[in-house]
């Protein structure tokens, strides 16, 4: 089961690549922000899987903090940075 959890964690880690691709590609600021959201959720899942695999309860606290703070960053984006961003890349 440990191996299984870790393998799934690895798989999720790889899917983060998709998020990064979207963050790089854009084109709009909203797209980039979305990708960070995906990143956050997937990372929460990875942390939970690691917590189970290694029996480290503390990692669930890390995941909790992750979930909370990701929301704060996203709100900061919506309320502050977005207003000023030029919404398209010169691609």
């Amino acid at each position, binding site marked *: 089961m440990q191996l299984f959890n870790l393998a*799934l964690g690895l798989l999720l880690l790889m899917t983060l690549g998709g998020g990064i691709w979207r963050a790089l590609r854009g084109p709009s600021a*909203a797209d980039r922000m979305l990708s960070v959201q995906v990143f956050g959720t997937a990372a*929460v*899942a990875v942390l*939970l899987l690691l917590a189970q695999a290694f029996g480290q309860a503390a990692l669930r606290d890390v995941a*909790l903090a992750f979930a*909370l703070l*990701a929301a704060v960053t*996203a709100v900061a984006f919506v309320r502050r940075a977005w207003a000023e961003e030029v919404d398209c890349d010169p691609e």
Partner: protein
Amino acid sequence: MILSDYVAAVLLLVGVFFFLAGTVGLVRFPDVYTRLHALTKSDNVGLGFVVMGLAVEAESWFVVGKLLLIWMLVLLAGASVAHLIARGATQRGVRMWTD
């Protein structure tokens, strides 16, 4: 492996599948609204299944409670942020993809 292990494994696999689907959507879908859709649905459902899978194996109710709390938080934040982003995008005149 006992039965609960199998149940957990299946739930986890389903969860990861949703994550994968969400990521594919994020990469392939044509505009911000469709991507938003792919992402929020699949991610939250994906995390939900992962949480369920882990809850089956959890050592105590406290852990189950914490797992559920984390999921609820992600749901709440994900839904609100998705709404705010979609709203913001509409207000900024990001056009919807039409074929």
